[in-house]
């Protein structure tokens, strides 16, 4: 079986050499809409045979959408695609896979409780009902030697470090006959040494004849890694197929971010109060996402700090630690002089409010609106006496809050899960913003809200600052940050890449920080 496969691929390699295709893949005019949002707008993209092409952009640029369309997981609204010289219109990921397109995402698709060899055969099209362990091991060893890897075939995937897991996943894709690889943010959880190994791996794949679309928002590694690069911003191509070696990365970074000048936004001058939030040398390790490395910053009363960065650079860790939900490996979080690290109760008592990024977690969807709205304050004297909840008071207060925060329908007894997304967001806001928080951590606060509702939400967030609270807004929406923030902190790989006043924000500076280009600015990040 192993021999047959390599033979086949050898044949294919031959055929591509005898009829050279300049482009392994090309797409014309790819568009895709999701509801109100135009995720991709007439995007042209071409991947040359034998090249590594970087696809670059910030949050919401459309990189993943394009990748899904190429791999067959998503249908484009309009597109004309060609793969290896033939018209290409995959109906599913299986279709794409059988045409040779493999899409390796951040959450790897290997089953962690099985070995690498077992994962090789799991779900493999055309696999025989009998699992030949020896053959699978031999196949993995073969690919390891071809690609200079060291993936132990009989180890459980769970026991392997992340870098090896990734290698195993890519190896599996290649073994299954992938002739075009799409790697989505593969370096996001890797350290420098592992990233170097990844780059070497990609080069070997390229030499072996497999072109790669390498999706990333981290520019520094691209000079070594890629041949050409394409920049997407908000669904449109901004830079198409530029030669990486000749590109000015700072200019690319600025283009990724777009125009963020502040000329139009009014910023009434405000008095700031005492320091209400102090983050001191915070280091956090997270299980499944990027943690934080030695973060320090302060926020005063009345100040709004916007935390930006491409999703997955430590935002979740930050949100969880600021609200006391996660413990730190080192360092601490202090609110109004009280340490709240790893102590949710202390955070609640210190009036820290948290607008969760994920509504499914931020609300109890099976419980009523009333129960949700009062959940923070259920022990207050207003709502319970001698340990018993005063249901009618809770209900009427809930009706009041629902009205004030425009939760529709304002029915305290409705199940929270039956509300629309926007109303759920407002419900969560009603719970968290009711009582003059000392610190508000708003993570993606206007997600799922229409523009009008977004404006109302932003006004409420601003109101928290006006009453003297400290506000940290973690958002992927640069518009939002522009409107709300007084200061900006850029997170990259769990560190503060840069930090500046809102008036100092420029495309170049912001883009560079988000793309990881300003790591040497790290020393400057221990500010204020």
């Amino acid at each position: 079986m192993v021999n047959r496969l390599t033979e086949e691929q050898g044949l294919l390699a031959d055929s591509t050499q005898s009829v050279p295709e300049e482009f392994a893949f090309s797409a014309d005019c790819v568009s895709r809409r999701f509801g109100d949002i135009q995720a991709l707008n007439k995007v042209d993209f071409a991947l040359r045979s034998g090249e590594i092409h970087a696809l670059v952009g910030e949050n919401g640029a459309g990189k993943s959408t394009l990748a899904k369309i190429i791999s067959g997981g998503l249908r484009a609204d309009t597109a004309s695609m060609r793969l290896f010289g033939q018209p290409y219109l995959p109906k599913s990921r299986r279709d794409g896979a059988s045409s040779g397109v493999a899409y390796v995402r951040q959450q790897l698709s290997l089953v962690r409780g099985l070995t690498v060899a077992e994962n090789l055969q799991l779900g493999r099209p055309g696999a025989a009902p009998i699992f030949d362990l020896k053959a699978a091991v031999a196949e993995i060893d073969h690919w390891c030697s071809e690609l200079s890897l060291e993936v132990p075939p009989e180890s459980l995937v769970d026991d392997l470090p992340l870098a090896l897991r990734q290698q195993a996943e890519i190896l599996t894709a290649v073994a299954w006959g992938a002739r075009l690889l799409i790697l989505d943010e593969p370096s996001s959880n890797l350290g420098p040494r592992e990233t170097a190994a990844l780059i070497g791996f990609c080069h070997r794949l390229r030499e072996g004849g497999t072109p790669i679309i390498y999706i990333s928002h981290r520019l520094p590694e691209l000079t070594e890694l890629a041949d050409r690069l394409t920049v997407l911003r908000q669904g449109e191509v901004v830079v198409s197929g530029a030669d990486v070696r000749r590109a000015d990365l700072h200019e690319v970074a600025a283009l990724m971010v777009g125009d963020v000048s502040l000329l139009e936004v009014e910023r009434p001058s405000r008095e700031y109060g005492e320091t209400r939030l102090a983050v001191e040398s915070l280091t956090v390790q997270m299980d499944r996402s990027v943690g934080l490395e030695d973060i320090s910053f302060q926020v005063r009363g009345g100040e709004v700090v916007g935390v930006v960065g491409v999703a997955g650079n430590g935002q979740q860790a930050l949100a969880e630690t600021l609200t006391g939900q996660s413990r730190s490996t080192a360092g601490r979080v202090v609110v109004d002089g009280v340490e709240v690290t790893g102590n949710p109760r202390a955070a609640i008592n210190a009036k820290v409010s948290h607008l969760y990024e994920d509504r499914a977690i931020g609300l109890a969807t099976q419980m009523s609106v009333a129960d949700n709205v009062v959940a923070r304050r259920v022990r207050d004297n207003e709502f319970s006496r001698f340990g018993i909840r005063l249901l009618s008071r809770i209900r009427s207060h809930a009706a009041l809050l629902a009205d004030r925060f425009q939760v529709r329908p304002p029915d305290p007894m409705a199940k929270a899960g039956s509300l629309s997304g926007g109303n759920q967001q407002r419900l969560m806001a009603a719970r968290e913003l009711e009582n003059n928080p000392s610190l508000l951590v708003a993570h993606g606060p206007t997600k799922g809200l229409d523009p009008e509702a977004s404006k109302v939400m932003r006004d409420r967030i601003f109101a928290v600052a006006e009453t003297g609270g400290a506000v940290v807004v973690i958002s992927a929406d640069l518009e939002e940050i522009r409107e709300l923030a007084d200061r900006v902190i850029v997170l990259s790989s769990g560190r503060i890449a840069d930090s500046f006043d809102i008036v100092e924000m420029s495309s170049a500076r912001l883009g560079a920080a988000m793309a990881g280009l300003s790591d040497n600015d790290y020393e400057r990040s221990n500010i204020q």
Partner: protein
Amino acid sequence: MSRLAEATFWSATIAGGLRLATPLIFASIGEAFAQRSGVLNIGLEGYMIVGALASVYVADPTLTPLGFVAGGLAGLLLSTLMVLFSVRLYANQVVVGFGLTILGVGITSFIFSLTTSVGGIDRQVPLPKRIHLPVLSDIPWLGRAVFLHSWYTWLALALVPIAWWVASRTIFGLQVRAVGEDPDAASARGIDVIKVRSNATLISGLLGGLGGAAFMLGAVGRFQPMITANRGFIALIVLIMANWKIWGAALGAFVFGFFEAFSINLNNVFVDVPTELLEAIPFAVALAILTLGVRRSRMPPSLGTNYEATR
């Protein structure tokens, strides 16, 4: 006390242990498949008892193999309800399992009561002969212990390597394990989680029924209501001891069988140590394994949770 020093005591105990372990081996191997795919099958007791009844119904002294098969089919039939309610309609697995156990016990008691009074199925199936193997059965001590058993026991022992092979060397086995470990990832790889779980549950029904049949035809011979006396639950515990592995399940079943035989034989002889203490040992072992092994536990992460198929 001196009895314990006698070799015949131990060989008889081991032999008894293997014999008592036989139904447990069938049931726990079947349950292993179900649980590895993430289905917590509390209804195993139900499969066993309907298997026991069906086997006696169909079996004639000359037709015991047919009875055996009938038992398996009865268990299989009952397990289709588990598939329907829990796997496909997402009902709580524990509740459905209880329902099936109660249903199994109830239906078998019901049928038994009504047919006995009519002179129907009150039959006593003679216990099977022990197969005498040419050289092996005559080995002085080992022969009696290990090589002189009925074909049910031999079948059970043969099942173990076969089941192991299916679990680790077939794609189906890989799928079962993948679904139990991470149903979302398995689904992303194109595996039909619902179908795999259904098949695994049906296997546990079939083997559970065979276990009940083996118990009836191989050891007891005559049906009484609730005769299986919680052996189905014991099979669940065996699986805990086995850390969800096939060979471990066989070993665990033997441990239970051994201690049961031990306490029975001991009772005939010597009454200082309470038999209950001896009977408790296998459970204590299971608890220890459950507790201490938490980090190395191979309990399928999705055990007991339902997977809702999304398009």
